[in-house]
């Protein structure tokens, strides 16, 4: 029987499948990290989250 995967491992695996979206979101934040405010990169984040949700379902 394979060892139980911890939820955090599943989470990490799913996130790893979205490196393109993650780098777009990361770049959006880092472009001007002195003036980050709430939902500054909302569209990029939603794209990243959608990708993660899709990857987590598989």
């Amino acid at each position, binding site marked *: 029987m394979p060892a139980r995967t911890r939820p955090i491992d599943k989470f990490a695996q799913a996130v790893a499948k979205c490196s393109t979206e993650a780098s777009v979101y*990361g*770049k959006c934040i880092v472009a001007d*990290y002195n003036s980050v405010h709430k939902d500054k990169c909302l569209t990029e984040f939603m794209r990243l989250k959608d990708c*993660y949700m899709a990857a987590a379902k598989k």
Partner: protein
Amino acid sequence: MNPATARPFLRYLPTRRRICISRSYAVQSPGNPTLQIFNRHTKYLQKERAAADPERSRQVDYLKDEVAMRLSERLLDINRHFDHVLDFGANSCNIARALTLPDPDPDPSKTSSPPLSTRLSHLTAADSSRTMLYRDADLPFNKEINLTRHVLDDEESLPYEAETFDAVLSSLSMHWINDLPSVLAQINHILKPDAPFIAAMFGGDTLFELRTSLQLADMERRGGVSPHVSPLADVRDMGGLLQKAGFKMLTVDVDDIIVDFPDTFALMQDLQSMGENNAILGREPGAIKRDVLLANEAIYRALHGNEDGTIPATFRMIYMIGWKEGPNQSKPLPRGTGQVNLADILGGGEVK
């Protein structure tokens, strides 16, 4: 009214009705109020939990073992035999293990020198977490060193008599102490005269990558920040603190250890297994939200990530050596007694 009857009335009235006014001033209770930053009980629970899984806990001992080794190398510089040594905040007795390793002297002509543990007669390892302290009690290194484990009730009040120890060591545990000045003064108190205190602790820029990226993630996702990474002492502060605690002939230096991790989740899991997770009093209860974790992973990579896809985590170690004042101890010369201009020896021209 008859004045004769009114007189005694008037005479006695003020005395009878006198209200005893005791004047009091706002007085500060003895001892300065200490600022509480860390929840010591939470820290205790985290360490107990981490040590409850010995296999995983041993896997993440890479940092503590490395620092313990570098710290005990500094004992080589002191040409002395120590009768009774205290390891304050011992974690899983990493220092005891490091001391039993073959002598790390880099001199190739003396490769077969005995391990450092022969230089001390008795080591007391003290920590508040029993499970962490006794985790490796069955391993072979315990037989090679005269080791006593001592579970402390509270790491901020040391239960030892004055002038008990010939040296006090401490590796990677003092960064969770709330009242550092008081603990340093207590350590000074339990040392014998002219005995050294040698310690390593996380300081300054430790985990600055995680600190900054979590702040940005918190800010962008939730519109505010919550403390995730502890405030840590700076190198400059340590000199002052040691001096205040009464230590002489101070040496403070820093050493960065940069560890590469595959992703931020691996970093955070390792920190958790080390028992080094967040224990700040003002932290939010519960785990970090998934949205923030997701954002953090992306920001960490964009801001600090290595080209090969890994992420670096900096651990800045502050090493310090302080000596308790003793007779016949060498002292710095008074100011202005120098006879030689350092510029003549070191070279170096005029500053223009």
